[in-house]
C-alpha cells in the first residue's frame, strides 16, 4: 500500500510487537529507499555498506522507539541519512589527517567520456564536501527534502520538530549550498544570481 509520492503508508493501527512483522512492515517496503538514500550521499561502495550496517545497528538499538514513532518509515530513513552523513564526515577527517596533496586541476578541453567522468566526479566531491560542511540538522532536512523528496510534514515527524523549523532548516541549507556551490553554475546564471 503506497501513499503520496510512492511513500509507503504506515497506518498507526499497525501494532508491531513481533520482530518478523517489524521487518516485513517497516523495513522491507522501504529497503530500496534505504539503500538508495545511502548510496546517493556516500557514492562509495565500501562506505555505503558500512553506512547501511551502522543504520541497521541503530535501528536494532531503537526498535522500541521506532515502533512507537508516529512515522516509523521516515524515522528509519532519517537514521540511514544520518549514518551516511557520518560516513562522509569520517572520510573528510581521514583525508585531513592524511594531508594528501591536492591533485592538479586541468581545464576540460576535450569532450572524451573519460574527461567528462572525471569532471563530474570532481563536481560530486565538491557537493559532498559542501553537504558535509552544513550543520547536521540542516543537512538532514535538505537531503530529506531534495534527495528523498519528502513532504515537510514527514520531515518534521522524522526530525521531531515543527514543520516551520524544517522549512527554516531547508531554506538556510539551500542558501548556504547555493553560496558555496555558486562556481558550479553556468556563467550566465552566475551573473543573474549576483
Amino acid at each position, binding site marked *: 500500500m503506497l501513499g503520496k509520492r510512492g511513500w509507503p503508508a504506515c497506518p498507526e493501527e499497525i501494532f508491531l510487537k513481533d*520482530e*518478523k512483522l*517489524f*521487518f516485513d512492515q517497516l*523495513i522491507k517496503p522501504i*529497503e530500496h529507499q534505504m*539503500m*538508495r538514500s545511502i*548510496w*546517493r*550521499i556516500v*557514492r562509495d*561502495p*565500501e562506505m*555505503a*555498506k558500512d553506512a*547501511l*550496517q551502522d543504520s*541497521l545497528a541503530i535501528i*536494532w538499538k531503537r526498535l522500541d522507539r521506532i515502533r512507537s514513532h508516529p512515522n516509523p518509515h521516515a524515522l528509519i530513513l532519517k537514521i540511514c541519512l544520518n549514518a551516511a552523513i557520518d560516513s562522509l564526515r569520517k*572520510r573528510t577527517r*581521514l*583525508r585531513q589527517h*592524511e594531508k*594528501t*596533496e*591536492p*591533485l*592538479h586541476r*586541468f581545464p576540460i578541453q*576535450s569532450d*572524451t*567520456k*573519460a*574527461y567528462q*567522468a*572525471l569532471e*563530474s*566526479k570532481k*563536481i*560530486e566531491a565538491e*557537493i*559532498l564536501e559542501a553537504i558535509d560542511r552544513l550543520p547536521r540538522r540542516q543537512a538532514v532536512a535538505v537531503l530529506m527534502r*531534495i*534527495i528523498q523528496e519528502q513532504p515537510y510534514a514527514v520531515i518534521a515527524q522524522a526530525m521531531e520538530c515543527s514543520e516551520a523549523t524544517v522549512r527554516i532548516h531547508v531554506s538556510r541549507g*539551500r*542558501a548556504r*549550498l*547555493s553560496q558555496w*556551490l555558486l562556481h*558550479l*553554475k553556468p556563467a550566465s*546564471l552566475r551573473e*543573474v*544570481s549576483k
Partner: protein
Amino acid sequence: MKKEDSDKFEIDDLLKQTLKDDLPPELESRMKKQLILFRKKMDQPEQQRREETNGALRRFFYGGGLKWMQWMLKKQVLAPASIIMVVLGAVLQITGPSSVLAESISILKTSVIVSDRVSHAESMECSIQVLAENEQHLKYFIQWLSPNLTRVQLIKQNQDIIKTMWISEEEITIADHATNILRKVEKVEQIDDQEFQHALDLLSPLDLVEQMEGKWRLKQYSQQGDCESGTFTVAIPEEKTLLELTVDLCTFLPTNFKKFLEDPKKESGEGKILMDVNFKWNTSIPTQLMLPKITKGSSCA
C-alpha cells in the same frame, strides 16, 4: 520567477543531477544480503538472542562464579590481591616486551589501516621489475588516478617504452610503439598481450587491496622504529611464493614489495627476486597523461 525561487530550483537540480539514483546492481545485491542477515537476526526469538548475549554472564553466575566473586571481594583477600597486582604491573613494565596478544592486535590494526589507506588513495605510481621467462627482465611503470584512470608503460631492458596501455571506465587502449598500432578492448580480461599479464594485478589500489585481503597469508611482521617502516612477510599459497611488503608507518602506505620463491634456499636461485615493486602515493599526476592522445597522421602518440 523570483531570484530566490530560481536559486532554490537550481541547487535542487544540481544536487539531484549529481547525486544520481544510480546504485550499482552489484552493490545493491551486497546490501540486500546485509538486510537478509539483519532479518535473520531479528527472526531469532527474543529469548535466544538474550541467551546469546548474556550466555557467558549467566554461565558465570549459575556455574558458582557468583560465590567465588563474593569470596574474592572480601577485604582479607582484596588487600593481598591488590598488592600482587601492583607488583605484577611493575614487573611487566620493567621487563618491557609486550605480550603476544597485544602484538598480534597491533599487527592486525596496522594491516587494517594499510588496507584502508590504500583503498582511499587519490593516486598511485609504481615501478615494477619482473623476472620473466628466459631470465628476461621486464619493467612496467603504472600510474593510477582516482577514480579509475590507469596508464601502464612496458619498458624493455634498453629503457625504451615499447607498449602503453590506457584504462578508463569506458575502454582500454593499447599502443604498440614498435609497430605503431593502436587497438582497443572493452575489458581487462580481453587483454591478451602476454607481456602485460605481470602488471594486471596492480592496475589500481583496489587490486592491491583485493590481493592483500584475498590471496595473502600473513607469516611474520617486523618493525623498524616507531614511525619508520614495518615489513609484512606473507605467503601466497596459490603461487608458492613469499612476499615482503614494506609499509611507511607514518602514512601507512606501502613503499615497496618484493616477491620471492617460497623457499629460496632450496631453489636454484637463492634470494632471487621474482618481482620488485616500488610505490609512490598521492602525487600529482597530470590528467592528460592518463588518456590516449590521438594525433592526425599517426595511429598513436
